[in-house]
C-alpha cells in the first residue's frame, strides 16, 4: 500500500520539470503579453490601464491591414507552389535506390541550413550587383530591373524563397505517407490494367488524404508566421509591399518599442494560430495518432 501511494506520484514528478519550463516560457509570456496589451506602456514601464484600446489601434491601423494583405498573398502562393513542388518531389524520389536517396538528401540541404543564411544567399542571387538577374533578364529587355526593387517581383522572390526552402519539408512529410501505402495495392491495380494516372487518382490520393491535410496545415502555420524571409530578403520593401504581419509586429516591438500595441498584435496572431493548431489536432486525431 505504502509503495503504491508512492508510485502514484512518480509520473508527475517525472513530467514536472518539463511542464514547469513550458509553463514558464510558453504560457507565462502569453499571460504577461496579454497583461501588457491592456496597458499603455512607455519604455517598458506600464503607465495606465487602457482596456482594449491597443487592440482597436492595431486592427484599425492601415499598416497592419496592409501587412495582413501581404501575409495573405504570400501564404496563398507559397502554400500552393511549395506543396505542389514538394508533392512532385515526393512522387519522383519515392523509389528506392542510390540516386533517389542522394537526391532526397540534396533537396533537404536548403531546409537544413539556417533560414537567415538561405535568405541571405538568395538576396545575393537576386541582387542587381551579382549580375545574374541582369544576365537572365537582359535578353528580355529588362536588364536594368532589380528584382527586389519592384513590389510584385519582390513578392515573387519571397515566394521563391519559401519554395526553395520548404518544398523539402512537404516532400519528407508526404514521403512518410507514401511509405505507408502497401505496394501490393499498386501491384493489384497494375494487374487489373490501371495506368499510372489512374493508380495515382484512385489509390495514392485517397490514402494520402490525411498526410496531405496535415502537410498543408503545417505549411500554412509556417507561412502565416513568416519573419526571416521578408526581414532578410526584402526588408519588407519596396515600400511596405512585402511587410507581412509578423514583420510588422517585430518592428512595433523591437524597433519602435511600442510594447502595448505590439503585444496586442502578438496576442491576435497567437489566437489566429490557435485556430490553425486546433485544426491540426483534429487531423492528428483522425490520423489515429492520439
Amino acid at each position, binding site marked *: 500500500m505504502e509503495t503504491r501511494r508512492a508510485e502514484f506520484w512518480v509520473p508527475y514528478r517525472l513530467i514536472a520539470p518539463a511542464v514547469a519550463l513550458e509553463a514558464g516560457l510558453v504560457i507565462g509570456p502569453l499571460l504577461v503579453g496579454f497583461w501588457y496589451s491592456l496597458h499603455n506602456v512607455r519604455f517598458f514601464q506600464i503607465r495606465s490601464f487602457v482596456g482594449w484600446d491597443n487592440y482597436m489601434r492595431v486592427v484599425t491601423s492601415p499598416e497592419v491591414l496592409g501587412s495582413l494583405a501581404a501575409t495573405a498573398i504570400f501564404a496563398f502562393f507559397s502554400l500552393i507552389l511549395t506543396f505542389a513542388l514538394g508533392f512532385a518531389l515526393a512522387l*519522383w524520389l519515392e523509389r528506392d535506390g542510390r540516386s533517389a536517396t542522394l537526391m532526397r538528401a540534396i533537396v*533537404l540541404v536548403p531546409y537544413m541550413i539556417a533560414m537567415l*543564411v538561405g535568405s541571405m544567399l538568395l538576396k545575393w542571387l537576386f541582387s542587381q550587383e551579382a549580375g545574374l538577374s541582369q544576365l537572365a533578364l537582359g535578353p528580355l529587355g529588362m536588364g536594368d530591373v532589380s528584382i527586389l526593387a519592384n513590389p510584385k517581383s519582390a513578392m515573387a522572390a519571397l515566394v521563391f524563397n519559401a519554395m526553395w526552402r520548404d518544398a523539402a519539408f512537404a516532400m519528407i512529410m508526404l514521403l512518410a505517407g507514401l*511509405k505507408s501505402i502497401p505496394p501490393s495495392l499498386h501491384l493489384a491495380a497494375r494487374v487489373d490494367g490501371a495506368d499510372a494516372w489512374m493508380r495515382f487518382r484512385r489509390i495514392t490520393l485517397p490514402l494520402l488524404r490525411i498526410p496531405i491535410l496535415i502537410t498543408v496545415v503545417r505549411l500554412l502555420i509556417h507561412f502565416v508566421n513568416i519573419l526571416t524571409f521578408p526581414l532578410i530578403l526584402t526588408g519588407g520593401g519596396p515600400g511596405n509591399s512585402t511587410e507581412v504581419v509578423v514583420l510588422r509586429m517585430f518592428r*512595433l516591438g523591437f524597433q519602435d518599442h511600442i510594447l502595448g500595441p505590439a503585444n496586442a498584435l502578438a496576442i491576435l*496572431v497567437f489566437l489566429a494560430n490557435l485556430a490553425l493548431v486546433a485544426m491540426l489536432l483534429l487531423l492528428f486525431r483522425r490520423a489515429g495518432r492520439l
Partner: protein
Amino acid sequence: MTDVFAHALRRRAARLAVNALIGLFALLPILWGFLSSLKPTDKIVEFPPRLLPENPTLEHYARIFADNAAYFIANSIAVSAASVLLTLALGALAGYAIARFRFPGRDTLMVSTVAVMSIPIASLLVPTFTLLSATGLADTRLGLVLLYSAYQLPVVVWMLYGYFLSLPVEVENAARVDGCSPTRTLFKVVLPLSKPGLVAAGLFVLVFAWNDFVVAVTMTSSESARTFPVAIYFYLGFYGREWGPLLAASIVSIVPIVAIFVFLQRHFVSGLTGGGVKG
C-alpha cells in the same frame, strides 16, 4: 531488341536530366554564394559575372574572423550544447513518464504536447521579450538556452516517447523487481538502450539552436551574448553592400550543418515528421 535498349537509355537520360535540374535548383544559390565568397572584392560585382573565381582568395574569411567571428561561434556552440543537454534531460524524464505510466491527465498532456509543438515561435516573441526583460534573463546566454529548450522540448518528448515505446519492457521489469526505483531504471537501464533515439532528438535540438536567428536577435542585444547567426545579421548592417564577408560568414555557418547532415542523415529524417504523419 535495340529499340528496347534505346528506350531504356532515353528513360535513363530523362531521369538524369530531371535530377540535375532538381540539384541545380536546390544547390545553385549555395554554390553561387560560395564561389562569390572566394573572389576578391572588386571581382565580386564584375559584369558579366564569372562563375569560377579567377584568383580565389580567403580574404573575406580572414576578415570576419578579424571581426570577432570566433567569439560568436563559440557562443553559438556553448548555447547549442547546453540546450541539447537540458532538453534531452527534461525530455527523457517526461517521455518516460508518458511511455511507461498510465496516470490521470496523461491524455491532456499528450494533446498539449502536440499543441505547444505547433505554436509558432514568432507569435511568442514580443511577449517573451517582455517577460525576459522583467526577469533579467533578456540578453543572457542562459535565457537563450532556456528558450531553445522550451521550444524544442515538446518535439523531443514526442520523439523519445516513441523510442521508449519500442523498447522491450521486460528488461525494465527485471530491474524494478531487483529493487530499482523508476528514475534509477530510466538512467541505468532505459537510457543506455536509447542511444539512437537520444542522438536523433539531440541532433534536432542542435540544428535548431545552431540555426536560430529570430529568437537570438530579439532576446539579446549586447555582443557578449551574441550568437553567430545574429552576428551575420549585424554584418549585413555593418558591411552594408560588401558581399564578400557576408557570404563568407554564411558559408562558415553552413559547414557544420552540412557535415552533421552528411554523416548522420539517417538519424535526422525521423525527427522531421515528429508529431507525425503516418499511423
